């Protein structure tokens, strides 16, 4: 199955791109997608102390299952306002 990975702020700068498509095995979780992104872009994992996850633009835990066509976003520490 194919998912879209979205990257923001420090993550986007490290990866050099804001989004890309990745083929993932059936049964993958959001954690699995993040692990895959960290392989694709070494440095992502240590870019910041913590990361939150979103699936199709809603906050989720890393254990959330992903499906074909999903959009998975990694959210570094935020600073709106």
């Amino acid at each position, binding site marked *: 199955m194919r998912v879209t990975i979205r990257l923001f*702020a420090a993550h986007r700068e490290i990866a050099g791109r804001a989004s890309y498509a990745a083929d993932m095995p059936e049964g993958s979780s959001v954690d699995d997608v993040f692990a895959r992104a960290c392989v694709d872009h070494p440095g992502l994992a240590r870019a910041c102390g913590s990361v939150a996850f979103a699936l199709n633009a809603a906050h989720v835990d890393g254990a959330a299952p992903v499906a074909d066509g999903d959009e998975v*976003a990694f959210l570094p*520490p935020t600073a709106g306002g």
Partner: protein
Amino acid sequence: MSSRFAISATPLDDRAPLAALEAEGAGGIVVFVGRVRARSRGREVLRLEYEAYAEMAERVFAQIGAEAGAKFELTDIAIHHRTGVLEPGEVSVVIATAAGHRAAAFDACRWAIDRLKQIAPIWKKEHFADGAVWVDERP
């Protein structure tokens, strides 16, 4: 009529959230206008760069609006946030709350900006004379 919950890549009109409010019956309206500070942690800020996961941020604003409606006696709430490069003095966020009584409007507005800082997928890069850094405001 502008949207109540919006991310904007163009300069914010600080009256737009007020115009978007359903203020029928409201006895008090509070508008918070957040602006870029010229100094941050003792250093001069040349500019700020705001980045958002826009489609999610607008949904989170609506969630904050729903939470505020449950916590306070509100008539309505609107939240607009800017993205892109901003210079000191430019408006980064505007929140308007309308309520039957002023206390709820003040309390909800204060709560909403704090909640936005907690959960909205928005990032801020501070540019100084000698470099730039993505801000981490989480405790």
